[in-house]
């Protein structure tokens, strides 16, 4: 949105969206956990009516504020109204569900269409405030936080579902984060060099980008299916000592064959790539275990027993981290490539002409100019990983996907919601954090 626009279009759209939300049922009260249908309650109905009126007035005010000229304090006013709205909604969800539940703990309260739409409209107003003047966002953030800590949410079905077993929720959440945290360094370790290679060598550009893009189009279930026999075979037949020897001997052999023998460059590259890919699952397991048990192997080292002893199996963490690593590649590779291409050729030539060594050119010129792009790639990759880690449950890899899968299987809507809302919140938090980081890392001289 251009600064000083005549009105704030986002805020207007949000108000329009909120109109049907005032009408549609806000909550649904289901008599028990497993029953999919229940009684719908709207904002115009008895216990909610005062909140309904307050919301109607608030949205009208927001629409009016959106039409004010900038000079008349549109930004602070919108910020203030959004703060009130956020506080009211955050508190309302908690209080409302508690009131509707009454004293029957079996009753499950969830949001109905109108409730979700109302929250979505509120999200849109946040965007409107950000477009208007981002520095006012702290106001609604503070209001939301205050309401959040001061209101009980026990009435909400989702929370009830959490309370059934907080330990297993925390386990799932931690496992979700562990999977992401184990895959991310591997994605970066593979993606950054690939992006740099795609930039440096003409011949590598098309194949690298094509492969990274192709990986993205594969359905992850198919990839799991492919990995299952491969990894279980690898886990059964390889040992740590054998692998250690292979890690030394194979690169040596490839290098010797390339340097003095008949192996062409592309064959050498192909061998190196497949060797790296073969190591990936084991590294993934080690990283994951490092995060879970503070050591790479769950128990003592078994040098001569199959790697399956260390957790390299067709099911579990190994395929989960491998698949995540491969899926996360595309944003990192593309953004690295893009970032390096965005470095002006003249600046690079000048850097060399001033007498910078190749590493100095990289460190002092290319890296600072490409860094915002790299962090942008990191952000895209992290978002993908946070979302896709939900599927790890398919191969018994754990994570928040557990709630999605079990919830669907047992037809417990609140369980599905608990999983979905957690994943979405995680993604939003990651997104906001890294957007800030990009802003901060963009060199001042190249900021728009």
């Amino acid at each position, binding site marked *: 949105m251009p600064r000083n626009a005549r009105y704030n279009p986002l805020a207007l759209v949000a108000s329009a969206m909120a109109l049907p939300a005032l009408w549609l049922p806000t909550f649904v009260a289901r008599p028990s956990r497993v029953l999919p249908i229940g009684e719908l309650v709207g904002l115009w109905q008895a216990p909610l009516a005062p909140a309904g009126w307050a919301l109607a007035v608030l949205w009208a005010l927001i629409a009016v504020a959106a039409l004010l000229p900038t000079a008349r304090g549109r930004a602070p006013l919108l910020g203030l109204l959004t703060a009130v709205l956020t506080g009211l909604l955050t508190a309302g969800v908690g209080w409302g569900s508690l009131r509707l539940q009454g004293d029957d703990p079996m009753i499950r309260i969830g949001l109905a269409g109108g409730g979700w739409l109302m929250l979505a409209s509120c999200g849109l107003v946040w965007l409107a405030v950000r477009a208007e003047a981002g520095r006012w966002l702290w106001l609604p953030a503070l209001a939301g936080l205050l309401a959040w800590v001061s209101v009980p949410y026990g009435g909400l079905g989702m929370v009830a579902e959490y309370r059934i077993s907080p330990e297993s929720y925390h386990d799932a959440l931690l496992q979700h984060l562990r999977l992401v945290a184990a895959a991310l360094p591997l994605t970066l370790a593979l993606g950054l060099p690939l992006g740099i290679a795609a930039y440096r060598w003409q011949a590598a550009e098309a194949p690298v980008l094509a492969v990274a893009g192709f990986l993205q189009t594969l359905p992850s279930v198919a990839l799991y299916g492919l990995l299952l026999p491969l990894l279980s075979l690898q886990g059964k037949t390889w040992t740590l000592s054998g692998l250690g020897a292979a890690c030394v001997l194979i690169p040596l052999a490839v290098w010797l064959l390339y340097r003095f023998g008949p192996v062409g460059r592309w064959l050498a590259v192909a061998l190196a790539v497949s060797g790296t890919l073969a190591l990936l699952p084991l590294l993934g397991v080690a990283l994951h275990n490092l995060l879970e048990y503070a050591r790479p192997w769950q128990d003592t080292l078994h040098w001569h027993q199959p790697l399956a002893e260390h957790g390299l199996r067709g099911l579990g963490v190994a395929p989960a981290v491998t698949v995540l690593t491969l899926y996360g590649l595309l944003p990192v590779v593309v953004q690295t490539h893009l970032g390096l291409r965005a470095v002006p050729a*003249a*600046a690079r*030539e*000048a850097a060399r*002409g001033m*007498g910078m060594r190749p590493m100095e050119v990289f460190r002092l010129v290319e890296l600072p100019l490409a860094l915002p792009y790299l962090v942008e790639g990191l952000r895209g990759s992290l978002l993908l990983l946070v979302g896709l880690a939900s599927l790890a449950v398919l191969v018994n890899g754990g994570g928040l996907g557990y709630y999605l899968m079990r919830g669907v299987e047992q037809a417990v809507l609140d369980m599905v919601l608990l999983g979905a809302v957690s994943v979405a919140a995680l993604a939003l938090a990651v997104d906001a954090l890294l957007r800030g980081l990009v802003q901060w890392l963009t*060199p001042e001289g190249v900021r728009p």
Partner: protein
Amino acid sequence: MIRLEALSRHFDGHAAVEDVSLEISGGTLQVLIGPSGCGKSTLLRLINRLIAPTTGRVLLDGVDTATLAPEALRRRIGYVIQGTGLFPHLTVAENIAVVPRLLGWPKAARRQRVEALMELVRLEPALATRYPAALSGGQQQRVGIARALAADPALLLMDEPFSALDPVTRRQLQAALLDIQQRVRKTIVFVTHDMEEAVRLGDRIALMQDGRLVQNGPPDALLRHPVNAFAAAFVGEERALMRLARHSVADFMRTEPPFPLAAPAVSANLPARQALSRLLDGQPVLLVTGPSGEAVGQIALQDFAQE
């Protein structure tokens, strides 16, 4: 002193520079001139070894540059890249201090050097903390020149440093360069495709065509005796006028009295072209005055015809 020996550089079989031999003695301002694509930039980049020659050698003070570490070599050679090539993420001061920083100068020394250089190229001190994007084209080119001068190199390579400027700024910077050259004698290789600029600045001018050296010598020699049809065409029909660019009124005036004291006065070190222009405007004769305003000679149209 630089010696280029039978220097060639081919790109995919196409010769960008072909068999160029050239000697540039210390303290001279050597101009490289020629049409677009004739290999001027390539020749510069061969000198600081941004690219390696296909055949031939570059000798710097008698040492073959192929035997030196390229980065160390380049840190000794100032380089003003075509189209400024400033680092967009560094401030003006940081841009200028790049080479001193690479050479590990202490901070205080770098700051002093930046201040001195900004004064030398006439950049206001307030610009030091600006980023290149917030500078005018002329200011950017000045920063480029200051950056090349930062480590006080004895050899300076300048690739069309004044190309993107209006005539007034361009003249200012040319004068500034001549001024700098007068004070701190450097060996300068200066690329341009503007004949007038070449004549104004160059101690020697080398004319290039399709990667080859056509003619090299003092400006007057090129203007008066072009070696072939290409050189004559490149120098152009105005070559006589062009020659005036290097001369002042003092070079043409008659010093025998009596002086036409009633005629309008001009200074003896006024560029000859400006005096000519005033005579062509209808002024029959001009009085020439010395530094303290005393009459030292006179000049009229026919004085330009002699010589």
